[in-house]
């Protein structure tokens, strides 16, 4: 196979575009797991839920799925709040979050998936967007809009979250609650409330990421499970609790997959990603940019 610079360039572009999307999927975990220490293994289920909601509206009314998901995100926010309440009352307050919390979210993951199957069936669903089949070509390098648009919106969302965390009072409260909940309480802020809203934010991002997913590829209820490992890999790789780390981790993973796909054979791509994760856990568990 001739390795032209065009092939290389396209592999890089594809990897970066994909990485942007992976970042959008993982930023929620970065918050819930990285900062709040809540192992929300059901995160991909909410992504898929977001995909389906975008699909219904798109199918019925033809609205752009990404617009729909942004409009619907307050609902996800509320859902996140309720979920966290249950989680807090049942586990965190009793100090049993590690084992039981995990099991709890596992159950939520399953219930969501099965509920979607019962309502929608197992057929793959796709959306139709005006830009879905458009590819912008710069010489021999392709920029498919199907990947570019989600990438751009992902970047806005991820950078938005980062700015929110560092530049608003509430955002800084979230960062603080990750570092020292007691001190936060002493400063008059209720850490539980902060965590609740932060968790809600993470679920809201999942809903929006779901729209990206269904623009990029067809969706069916079971594929959520395939992304569990990926989103956690991105966060661990990048470093827990750091949004920039998540972004970096996402790009690394996207590039690794794209390069492996292109040059070594697509069937090894996921193994490379998870191999990276295992290696990180073994040798540098704090990740690339972690504390």
């Amino acid at each position, binding site marked *: *196979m*001739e*390795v*032209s610079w065009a*092939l290389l360039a*396209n*592999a890089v572009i*594809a990897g970066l575009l*994909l990485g942007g*999307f992976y970042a959008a999927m993982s930023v929620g975990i970065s918050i819930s797991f990285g900062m709040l220490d809540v192992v929300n293994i059901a995160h991909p289920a909410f992504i898929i839920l977001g995909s389906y909601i975008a699909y219904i509206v798109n199918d019925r009314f033809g609205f752009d799925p990404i617009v729909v998901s942004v409009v619907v995100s307050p609902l996800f926010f509320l859902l996140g709040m309720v979920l966290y309440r249950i989680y807090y009352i049942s586990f965190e307050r009793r100090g049993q979050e590690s084992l039981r919390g995990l099991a709890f979210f596992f159950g939520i993951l399953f219930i969501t998936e099965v509920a979607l*199957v019962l309502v929608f*069936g*197992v*057929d*793959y669903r*796709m959306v*139709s967007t005006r830009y879905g*089949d458009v*590819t912008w*070509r710069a010489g021999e390098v*392709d920029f*498919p809009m*199907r*990947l570019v648009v989600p990438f751009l919106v992902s970047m806005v969302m991820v950078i938005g979250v980062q700015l929110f965390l560092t530049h608003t009072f509430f955002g800084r409260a979230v960062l603080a609650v990750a570092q020292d909940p007691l001190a936060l309480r002493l400063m008059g802020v209720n850490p539980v409330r902060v965590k609740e809203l932060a968790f809600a934010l993470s679920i809201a991002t999942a809903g929006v990421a779901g729209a990206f997913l269904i623009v*990029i*590829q*067809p969706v*069916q209820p*079971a*594929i959520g499970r*395939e992304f569990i490992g990926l989103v956690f890999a991105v966060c661990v790789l990048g470093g827990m609790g750091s949004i920039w780390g998540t972004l970096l981790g996402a790009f690394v993973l996207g590039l690794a997959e*794209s390069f492996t*796909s*292109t*040059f070594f*054979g*697509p*069937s090894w*791509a*996921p193994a490379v990603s998870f191999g990276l994760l295992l290696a990180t856990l073994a040798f540098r568990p704090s990740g690339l940019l972690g504390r």
Partner: protein
Amino acid sequence: MLVVLSTLRRMLGALFIGLALAGAALAQQPLKIGFGMSLTGPLAGNGKAALIAMEIWRDDVNAKGGILGRRVEFVYYDDQTSPATVPSIYTKLLDVDKVDLVVSGYGTNVIAPAMPIMMQRNLTFMTLFGLNVNSKFNYDRYFQIMPAGPRPAIGWSQGFFDAAMGMNPKPKTIALVGADAEYPAMALEGAREHAKKTGLKIVYDKTYPPNTVDYSPIVRAIQATNPEVVFVASYPPDSAGMVRAANEVGLKTRMFGGGLVGPQFAALKTQLGPLLNGIVNYEFYVPDLGGRFPFLEQFLSKYQARAAKEGVDPLGFYLPPYAYAMMQVLEQAITATKGLDQAKLAEYIHKNTFDTYVGKVAFAKNGEWAAPRVMMTQYHGITGNDVEQFKKPGRLTVLSPKEYKTGDLKAPYHENKK
């Protein structure tokens, strides 16, 4: 004396009536056919479609008085497209529900685990689209309704390679790509053999995992090898991904397609629409050949009415006609052998040719079709994304086999995408 005679007559009369009633009672006993079917899980779309077809068959047969005077009833369970459920399902059907006959579910995954049970009890087993399952078991009462021929891996892509080598000048290179899954692996194996036989040089031969998100790197890598022919074996989600990627990347090759599962169904036909133009792919039913398959159009309109209501593939060109045909073979065998003797059924099915909605069906010694009849077609003239255009002729050219050919291959692929 007269009194004795009349009493005798009355007794004989009563005896006759008694026997007739008993016979009728026996005849009233329904003929129970049991099976597992994928109603949930990855193949549920097809499983539900097959079930509808089988139920239409059951209703048709019962309207004509049943088989051997007995009403046909189904006993079925959802196998979730998972092999692990199959032994329990079939042992329950046979030992607890006491069905008279069993047929298989859809796909190798659920057929293979049932084989030991069938073999232990010497049952005749009609199966629905398993891939070369019997090559391991060598069971002489196994029958397969998929028209891939006695060597499924080879028969599957025969038409594709025939059409490819029919191009002028003959192509020299081929790229092979497919998903990491059971069907594509078999299809690719067959394609490799064909490539060897026809002297095509394989310049790319890789598989991708089923949950791949982006297919463009794959298509680009394929393009970098400049193949003249590209053979793809994929399942619906990756079929969609590959077709889109081919359009995104602007794949330039002389012939593209072969073994994509998915474009046979309405969902993908409507989603991809014009993106399918130029692609060569297998189909099991083509509206252009409607006249060649009497009764099939009737069946399809019945099926399509029900499918629309139940949210299943609205076209029904793929599995449903064959599921119906499978039951027809069974019905004809039972009627001809006048009973449910499994050995006689198997013998009869092996020895005879059957008239079914999908044409004449005959089986080879290993239970597969005696001759392959996978139709290789080329898409063209698809405009927009509505489903009605696919119900009418004019969107598919049948390239192979010869007896159904309606036109020639238009190459190269990238110049014939309209």
